[in-house]
């Protein structure tokens, strides 16, 4: 039997939620466009949404099962919730907020809080008033507060959505450290496929209240079932790479499968990176492009072409990595692209954004 099981149904306003998912992965990402029911699903798991009922088992613990008449109260579920807006208690300072969770957390909470304080670099923030915190700092405090309650699992609701773009990489790095170093089960809600690919071992894709696909993020976010959502989600490409050597103004990195990349800034050798690449920033050339400013040109094979309305998403295999390029139908026709076509993938170094 799977460690985590969710069978929840109910109608909340215009949303008809009907979710059925079961999995063993410790970190699962719930992905979907806005309005797909992600936050409602979290609220239902927390027991805060009385209009949604069913069965909830988190990390092996049954919290709700309407068939057996079981419905654990939200205060007894032991789930660490980090809402989209950090919702820090304004009448307490940072230390007061993080210690709030200790009421339930007890000694294990003290221990987790000590780890979280270090991992999230909270030390300098503890004496601050909450209204002086930046968005990213407030998010970290909310995360530590949830951890101090020694939860059986962490529930993160769009942890990066309220942050400005420059802050996200740092916030994501903090979240990944919590994920890797504290070892707690996590349900991580996001509308951002980049984040989904970085965050979880499993992606559960939600659309209009239903699970439309689930599986390894890399597979599932490019699957046919998700293709209709690709535009709203803005599914893009994520590459994991390691810096091999750095020049004065650029760096060379390679992915595990050996794809060599040129990056737009100098980085110390050995740095591991997650790089995001938008599908509409990739050029495909039928012939080798010759002298060109773009620093990354790869030979590739087209795996498939998904056509939606006026755009085509061309899935390419490049030295063992998959990249999706977004082209016009006209371009696909004029290059004669189809499964098996040989192409040259052209990527500006600047287009490789560092996510973490």
């Amino acid at each position, binding site marked *: 039997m799977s460690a985590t099981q969710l069978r929840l149904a109910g109608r909340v306003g215009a949303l008809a939620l009907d979710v059925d998912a079961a999995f063993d992965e410790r970190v699962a990402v719930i992905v979907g466009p806005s309005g797909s029911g992600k936050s409602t699903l979290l609220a239902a798991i*927390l027991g*805060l949404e009385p209009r949604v009922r069913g069965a909830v088992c988190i990390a092996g613990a049954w919290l709700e099962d309407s068939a057996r008449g079981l419905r654990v109260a*939200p*205060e*007894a*579920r*032991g*789930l*660490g*919730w980090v*809402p989209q*807006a950090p*919702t820090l*208690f*304004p*009448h307490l300072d940072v230390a007061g907020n993080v210690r*709030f*969770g200790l*009421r*339930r957390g007890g000694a294990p909470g003290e221990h987790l809080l000590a780890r979280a304080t270090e991992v999230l670099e909270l030390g300098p923030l503890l004496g601050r*008033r*909450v*209204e002086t915190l930046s968005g990213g700092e407030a998010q970290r405090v909310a995360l530590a*507060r*949830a951890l101090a*309650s020694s939860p059986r699992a962490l529930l993160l609701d769009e942890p990066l959505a309220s942050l400005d773009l420059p802050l996200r990489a740092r916030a994501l790095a903090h979240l990944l450290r919590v994920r890797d170093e504290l070892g707690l089960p996590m349900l991580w809600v996001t509308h951002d496929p980049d984040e989904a690919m970085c965050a979880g071992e499993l992606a559960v894709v939600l659309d209009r209240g239903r699970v439309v696909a689930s599986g390894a993020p890399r597979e599932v976010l490019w699957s046919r079932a998700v293709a209709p959502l690709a535009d709203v989600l803005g599914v893009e490409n994520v590459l994991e790479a390691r810096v091999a050597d750095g020049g004065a103004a650029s760096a060379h990195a390679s992915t595990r499968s050996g794809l060599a990349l040129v990056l737009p800034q100098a980085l110390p050798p050995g740095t591991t990176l997650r790089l995001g690449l938008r599908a509409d920033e990739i050029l495909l050339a039928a012939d080798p492009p010759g002298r060109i400013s773009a620093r990354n040109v790869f030979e590739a094979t087209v795996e498939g072409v998904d056509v939606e309305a006026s755009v085509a998403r061309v899935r390419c295999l490049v030295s063992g990595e998959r990249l999706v390029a977004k082209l016009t139908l006209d371009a696909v026709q004029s290059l004669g692209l189809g499964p098996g076509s040989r192409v040259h993938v052209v990527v500006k170094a600047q287009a490789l954004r560092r996510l973490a």
Partner: protein
Amino acid sequence: MSGSELLAMSLLTLRVGLAATLASAPLAIGFGYLLARRPFRGKALLQAVIALPMVLPPVAVGLGLLLLVARNGPLGGLLERVGLPIAFTPWAAILAAAVVGFPLFVRACEQAFVETSPRFEAVARTLGLGPLARFVRVSLPLARRGVFYGAVLAFTRGLGEFGATAVVAGILPGRTETLALGIWSRVQAGDDRAALVLCAASFVLALGSMLVAEGWLRRSRGPGA
């Protein structure tokens, strides 16, 4: 009239106002929270009933209270038996002040709770806090400014309470005669000078209370307000 008489009357007025406010606080805060947070049948009716002492003639309120706490009334008889007569004692003045101040107090509390987001309570709930702990550690601290403002309104209303007090507590010098009652009895007796002195004392008390309250509200302004 002597200085000690004036002082005693002022202190009695303050004590009555303070006791009335403190005694009605738990109920006012409770009703305010209930009205702000819980949907239930008959809510509009409850709101109307709570507002009654504010809209009825104070004398009518006083008469109603007197019927309730008089020696042969339902509550008065009971209290008489345990040796706590209320009618025409300082307790009656406190009761009258509490009742007429109650609608203002409840209204301010209700508004204060409406203005605090229920999300804070939801977060506290997921952190393991039961209903009472959530209320004491989250809801009430967040609504504290509005609750305090309600208390000030109820207190100052109590300081000036006349009609209901006169009926249920009587005008007994040294016992139930607050400043408001004192002014009336001096005017009746033709002692305009003394009435004006008591007016001045009322003025000082009212202004002082408002200044202290505003000062506190100003200092506590900011987060969670």
